[in-house]
């Protein structure tokens, strides 16, 4: 620490008021406009479907991060809170009298309340400690409730699940939500409201103490707060917003099955959240968008999308524990020092060859997969818009060479990038 960033120490009070007394609303307005504008940019129905899925995942991932990032609780069974909220909403949809008197946009609140109710019951005993004990209980409870789906058929509908029809709701200003676009705006409204509320939550006393308990539960206890109750409140709030996500899922897909409860879904949301970055509030939003794109767009291109998603996750855990958000925020100091421009050329020199290497590697993976699994006689395959015969030697040589050259150049230019990085993050004269 040679260069301290010091602001004018003579005016701390003014600095404080300018800094932390205002709640910034700029990003939220941008988000609201973006949400409204998206359907005009991506007009197709499939794009709307993808975006709906994205926003639902955003709500769920943000709710999950209230536990993982803010509260330091690793849950392996958080899908059940979203799932139970969703199932509850399906049942409300099927109560025709009640549902006919309820405008559809209100429905997610009930999903939230049921998710919250379940979280209150489970949280009463699971939040006693964080760490392994909490993780194990969450896993056990998750499995238990997922198993209930075939036992308590009346609620979970067994293997077929529960389906309903959202259009039976009371028309909302004449809108019956027949079109995908109507559902899109409903989902967008809820994603914005939920995100704002969750953000504000993190700025309340109990939200701040969630961070304190995450960092050091014992110290928090010696400040007058019961770590257990702080965790409980976080858990219940997280259950509520997970339930809202479940309610949105119910509205969007009009069917819920065991799949919404099981460990695989819980695992996905952990992956999404971690990929986006648990250290920043907006991390899970990025994670949800990136993962949904992988899941929907990439899965159209290759059967191996889950393999790539898994590789990306492992790479994130190993090399960028801060996730995508952490990767972005890493660059803030360089921008503050006005030296971010130093990074542009080294980045191009290193990251483009790296990307080419990765593409080459992907091509090899695809070719191996095709070689091993394609039907006999089906020798032709297409990778990166190039069609060739996977049983001849030439494509293999090309792919290997591209991979080797890409990574080779990356290795050569990496030290220069590192140097540029250090230079860009050091205050003062040119180094």
């Amino acid at each position: 620490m040679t260069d301290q960033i010091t602001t004018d120490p003579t005016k701390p009070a003014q600095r404080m008021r300018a800094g932390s007394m205002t709640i910034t609303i700029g990003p939220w307005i941008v988000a609201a406009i973006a949400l409204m504008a998206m359907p005009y940019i991506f007009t197709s129905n499939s794009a709307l479907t993808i975006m709906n899925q994205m926003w639902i995942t955003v709500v769920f991932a943000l709710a999950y991060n209230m536990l993982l990032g803010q509260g330091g609780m690793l849950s392996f069974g958080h899908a059940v809170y979203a799932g139970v909220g969703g199932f509850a909403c399906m049942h409300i949809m099927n109560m025709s009298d009640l549902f006919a008197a309820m405008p559809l946009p209100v429905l997610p609140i009930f999903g939230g309340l049921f998710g919250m109710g379940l979280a209150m019951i489970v949280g009463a005993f699971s939040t006693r400690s964080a760490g392994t004990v909490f993780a194990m209980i969450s896993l056990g409870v998750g499995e238990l409730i997922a198993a209930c789906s075939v036992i308590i058929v009346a609620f979970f509908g067994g293997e077929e699940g529960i389906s309903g029809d959202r259009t039976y709701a009371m028309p909302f200003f004449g809108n019956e939500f027949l079109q995908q676009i109507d559902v899109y705006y409903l989902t967008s409204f809820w994603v914005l409201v939920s995100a704002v509320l969750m953000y504000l939550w993190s700025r309340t006393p109990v939200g701040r103490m969630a961070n304190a308990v995450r960092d050091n539960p014992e110290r928090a206890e010696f400040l007058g707060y019961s770590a257990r109750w702080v965790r409980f409140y976080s858990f219940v709030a997280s259950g509520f917003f997970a339930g809202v996500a479940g309610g949105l899922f119910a509205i969007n897909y009009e069917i819920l099955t065991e799949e919404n409860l099981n460990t695989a879904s819980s695992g996905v949301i952990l992956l999404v959240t971690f990929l986006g970055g648990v250290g920043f509030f907006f991390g899970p939003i990025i994670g949800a968008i990136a993962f949904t794109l992988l899941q929907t767009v990439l899965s159209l291109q290759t059967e191996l999308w889950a393999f790539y998603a898994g590789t990306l996750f492992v790479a994130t855990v190993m090399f960028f524990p801060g996730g995508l958000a952490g990767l972005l925020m890493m660059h803030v100091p360089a921008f503050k020092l006005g030296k971010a421009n130093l990074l542009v050329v080294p980045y191009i020199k290193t990251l483009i060859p790296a990307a080419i290497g990765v593409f080459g590697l992907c091509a090899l993976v695809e070719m191996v997969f095709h070689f091993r699994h394609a039907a006999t006689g089906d020798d032709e395959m297409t990778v990166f818009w190039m069609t060739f015969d996977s049983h001849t030697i030439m494509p293999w040589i090309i792919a290997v060479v591209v991979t080797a050259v890409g990574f080779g150049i990356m290795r050569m230019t990496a030290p220069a990038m590192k140097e540029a990085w250090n230079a860009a993050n050091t205050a003062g004269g040119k180094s």
Partner: protein
Amino acid sequence: MSTPALELTGLKKSFGKAEIIRGIDLSIGKAERHAIIGPNGAGKSTLFNLITARFAPTEGHVKLHGQDLTGLQPFQINRMGLSRSFQITNIFPKMSVFENVRCALLWSQGYKYSFWNLVARSRRLTEGAEAILDQINLLERRDMPAGMLSYAEQRALEIGITIAGGADVIMLDEPTAGMSHSETDYITDLILKVTEGKTLIMVEHDMGVVFGLADRISVLVYGEIIATGKPEDVRGDPKVQEAYLGAALEAEH
């Protein structure tokens, strides 16, 4: 005589067969600065942990302002006006310095588990935290992650967190451990300043600090208090000299 701030009666603690605290009776008056000294392994930190309910005593009672603390949790004891620091720095490393202090203020300012207040909106919280930071000279480090502070600064922050809640009984566990001379002087002055009018109980190895700060001293040896009294009396006590001070003073000179 008014009720003592802290009263220990027949306090004992065993871990398995090992008796660490072997019956302690001690009464510490209001606004008294009391130091607990003793050789390594005498049970000083254990005694601290018993008082603050980090451990449950095997026998005996702790009374804070006349109220029995048996069976209470640390957070409940803290709410009754007892606050402590730790021998090993115990802060919230990932949070900013300011945030550390603000968290320490939340309960005492009555926010409890509120989720309908925004902390940044409370001028009282912000100004309170700023005032504490000013007291511990960390105002300039306000927005740094606490884990990035220097060791002495972290110790100062630890003291800041400890006093922030306005507790009237402050317990400091080796506040100057591992510090250089100048840092020790700085922390000693700081302790004097921030514990003005409060009851202070501290464990300390540095005799300079002890004799500079304490109104009374208790000497703990093998889980028993062998002497309690004014610094000069304790210094003159032959038992103390034999058990502890002699060796320590010899080492110092």
